[in-house]
Structures are given as C-alpha cells and as structure tokens.
C-alpha cells in the first residue's frame, strides 16, 4: 500500500479511517471560524436545523472583519446578532478592529499543526502555513459544526509543489504565488490539495508561507499545506508535480479581472494607477508594510494623484507598526489608514475606487466589481511592486527603486 500525503494523514486521524484520495469522510474539526460575511446565514441554518445548544463552543470563533466598522445599519445589526448568539453560547468574538479572522486564527494559535481547521470563508486555506488541513466551507457547513462538531469532506488528491533556490532581490512570496497561479490556472488545482515541499519551502519565512497558502484557493485548491509536525510519506502518491526555481523568478502582476492573468512586470510597466491598496489576509502583515515603506521612502514618496490606503491585517500588526515607527512613516507619506480588517478587499467596507480607476493591490482577488465598483480595474502584486507603483503613479519595476 503506498504512503500518504499530509492531507491524507490528517484526514485519516480526524475521521478514524484510513483515508485515501477520493474517499468521503466525516471528520471532527479542531477549530472553526465564522465571519460576519458568513455567520448570520449560518445562524439561520442552525435555527432551521432545530439547533439549541452549540456542540463545542470552545472550538468556534467569530470574527467581525468584513464590515469593520459596519458601514450600514443592516450590517451593524448582523454584528449585534452574532454578539448575542456568541454570548449566549460561550463563543469567542473577535470584535470590530481586532483584525481579519484568518490572521487572528493564526496569531491566537487556534490553527494548530496537524489539526483540521475550517472557516466559513474561502481564504481559510491560509492556515495551511502552520501545517494544518485548512479549508473554506459554507454557512451551512458551519451550522452543522455548531450542531455536531463535524463536517463531511472528500479527501483530495494532492499536487506537490517543490520550491528550490532562493528569491532574488525585489522578488517576494506574492511573486511565487502568482507564478504558481499562472502555471496551474484558476482551476488547475480544483478539488485538489497543494502540498508545498523542497528545501526552499522549509526555509521560507512564516509570513511567506501564509501568502502561498492563502493564494492556493485562487487556483481552486482545497488547501495549501506546508510540512511540519505532519510530513508526507516518502512514497505518497501525487496527482501532479510542479517545480519552481525561486532564483529564476521576477516580479509579477495579475491583470484585471482574473488572478491567473499573470504577466512578468516588464509587460505591465507604465500602466497608470490612481489607488494603491496595502492590506488583506494576503499582504497585510508587518513585514509587508516594512517592505512597502522602504520602497516608498527610497522612491521619494507617493506620486501626485495616487491614493495610498493602508489596512493592517490585525491590531497586533497595527501595534507593531505603531511601535517601530512604520505607522508614522505611512502617515507622513499621506496614506489613509483603515481599521484592521478586510477593508477594501471585497468592497464590503473601506475605500471604494471610482469609475475608470486602476487599483494595484496586495490582495488575492481582482474580479470585476471585487472592491465595490465594477467600473474599476484591479491589478495584484507584491507589497514592493504596489509601493513602486505608488511612487511612480504607474506600474513600475521595484528593483529600479532599491531601498
């Protein structure tokens, strides 16, 4: 019998069966996240199911992050409903301003190595960076977890992505992820897991792992998992092998309106931008802001006519930026600082771009209308490439503005 992938091992442990790709298993979850985007509907399902008590409230957390702060009476009432339910059942609530649920799941240790941790939001795949099987679920799934603590899952085949070499100057984790998106396509990993491997994956800083895991869903993947406590067997079977030599990469940009419409930076140079967005569960951590700040300062500040919006992924990130002077730098650079949370990423709150505006963003999605205006165009890139665009007022090569 061949060995198992990391995903097969974790789902075997959580289902009590020897799980193989293609099997459908019912698993006990170790942790679950609901956001203000998905939980109100989950509470409707829970009530319709006849739910009264929550199965294991200690394993569940709610994040008020998509509407943070609430931009309307209706969304404020969604928060009220979540707070009331959570208080009655003893569920943790991450309040408005504490940050993006995914970042908080990682910061708080609720996403743990070897665990099965799910979230009612597609970017729950982010926690794969800590070696847990992490995947996005729907509101009805979350309701079932509130009912019985379990979920049905189809065990995915895995694609092994082997990273080698080291990143050259000016090239970052986002560029690796965009290279992978271009290689696999927007559905190239559909119904499958992505398992990162190789010496460069083992050396990759934790923040960079979060970026790669986070973007796995943009290739359709069920998860994007790094080795750690749980490792794959040497004779595990993979559906596909992909090799990425990091030293060969250059900065990249995803063009509107698809994440896999990726070009090397040279083919996007000079595209004018009017809004630059730094934040989200992909690019809103302290290291991202440090890198962007360094380019902005080296380049002499933000070009006239460019709105720079900064939204830290969590209050802890904001506190770090306040402590180390980065926040003051961004204020001096004229940035608009948003409350920690999802911000402008999906148009649920925060700054919305105007008609005809080109935005370059550290986010994970650039679908038409994503940021709240279908007449705007969104480009995706690393924090330094976004910062370089802010300096020039147009898409520029960050390697030419070396800090």
């Amino acid at each position, binding site marked *: 019998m061949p060995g198992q992938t990391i995903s097969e091992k974790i789902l075997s442990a959580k289902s009590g069966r020897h799980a193989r790709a293609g099997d459908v298993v019912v698993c006990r979850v170790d942790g679950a996240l609901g956001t203000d985007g998905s939980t109100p509907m989950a509470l409707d399902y829970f009530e319709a199911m006849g739910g009264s008590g929550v199965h294991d409230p200690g394993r569940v957390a709610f994040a008020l992050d998509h509407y943070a702060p609430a931009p309307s009476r*209706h969304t404020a009432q969604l928060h009220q409903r979540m707070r009331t339910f959570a208080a009655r059942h003893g569920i943790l609530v991450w309040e408005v301003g504490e940050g993006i649920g995914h970042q908080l799941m990682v910061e708080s240790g609720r996403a743990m190595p070897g665990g099965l941790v799910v979230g009612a939001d597609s970017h729950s795949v982010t926690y794969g960076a800590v070696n847990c099987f992490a995947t996005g679920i729907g509101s009805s799934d979350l309701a079932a977890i509130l009912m019985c603590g379990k979920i049905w899952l189809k065990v995915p085949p895995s694609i092994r992505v082997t990273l080698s070499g080291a990143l050259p100057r000016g090239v970052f984790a986002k560029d690796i992820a965009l290279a992978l998106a271009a290689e696999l396509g927007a559905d190239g990993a559909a119904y499958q897991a992505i398992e990162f491997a190789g010496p460069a994956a083992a050396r990759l800083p934790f923040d960079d792992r979060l970026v790669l895991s986070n973007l796995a869903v943009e290739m359709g993947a069920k998860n994007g998992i790094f080795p750690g406590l749980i490792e794959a067997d040497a004779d595990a079977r993979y559906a596909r092998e992909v090799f990425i030599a990091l030293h060969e990469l250059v900065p990249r940009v995803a063009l509107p309106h698809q994440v896999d419409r990726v070009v090397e930076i040279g083919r996007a140079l000079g595209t004018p931008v009017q809004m630059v967005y730094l934040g989200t569960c992909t690019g809103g951590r302290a290291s991202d802001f440090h890198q962007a700040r360094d380019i902005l300062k080296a380049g002499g500040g933000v070009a006239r006519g460019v709105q720079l919006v900064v939204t830290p992924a969590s209050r802890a990130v904001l506190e770090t930026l306040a402590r180390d002077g980065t926040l003051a730098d961004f204020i001096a650079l004229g940035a608009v600082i948003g409350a920690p949370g999802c911000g402008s990423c999906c148009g649920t709150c925060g700054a919305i771009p105007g008609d005809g505006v080109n935005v370059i963003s550290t986010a994970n999605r650039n679908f038409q209308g994503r940021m709240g205006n279908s007449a705007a165009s969104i480009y995706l890139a690393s924090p330094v490439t976004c910062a370089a665009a802010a300096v020039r007022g147009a898409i520029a090569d960050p390697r030419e503005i070396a800090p």
Partner: protein
Amino acid sequence: MTGRARVFGDDINTDYIITSRRKRESLDPQVLRHYLFEEINPCFAASIAPGDLIVAGRNFGCGSAMEVAVTAVVGAGIRAVVARSFARTYYRNAVNNGLLPVVCDSSGIREGDPLTVLRAPSLAVHNERSGEILAADSLPAIMWAIIDAGGLVPYFQKHGDFVDARETKE
C-alpha cells in the same frame, strides 16, 4: 428533472452570480434572485422561467465561499447546475442546499436546449436537441443523502447528526 439550458462561460465567480454589494443589504433568496448574474447579464434575472437549468464551463462558482451564490439560484427555482467543473466551495454549498451539481462535458450545450438530468443507471444529461447523452461524474452516497433530503437543514432535522454514509447507500 427537465429544463431549459441557460448557458454561461468559464470562471463564473460567486461575485458574478450575486454581487457582495447586494448581500450587504439582504440575505433573502427571494430578494437576491432578482439580481442573479447582474454583473455580466443585467437582463438575466427577469428572464428566468421555472425549471431552467444553469449550464456553465469550467470552474463555476470560483472565488468567495459565500453561500448566497447558491441560495439565490435555488430561490430562483433552479434545481441543477451543469458544468465542466465547479469550484469546490460552490460544489459543497450546492449539495448542502439540495442544488444538484452535475459535472460533465457541457461544451456542446446551447442556450435554450431542452435538457433532462438522468439519475439511473448513472448520472447523465440528455440533450434533447442534439440527442446526446453526456455522462456525468457520480456522487458519493453521503452527497446523495443530503441532496435527497433537500439539503443539510432537512437532513439535520431528520438525523440531528451525520449518519454513516455507508449506511445511507441505496
């Protein structure tokens, strides 16, 4: 199940099915059904007839996991989506709401084609215009159990928990 094909292309994301901005003001499928696909075809919602089936290419329902992208479709009276492939969150949300996801080669289906979804002897789509029978991927027993119940809500009303899929096999 018989209905008229309403054809879309590849990579139809959940924001195209129903925009996040509509979701901000209501979660009611009977409200949201009026805005289905408005980003890519503003006339679509008004043209839906009972029994219509959605047909799409690859990666239907990619992007956000938001479940209103399924409930708004169910709310419009659509009972199945036929696609070359689905984004996995859309697929599981469909199962959990009793919307049948049919994975098959949908490339030959044209707008308005009369389709019949056949369950026996195996899942397939009969295109009555072309006469073709398109073989579809089979569904595991637990997914049929949830779909046949009408979704996770009636399933949990009946069972109160997940019952072993092997016991629910027909």
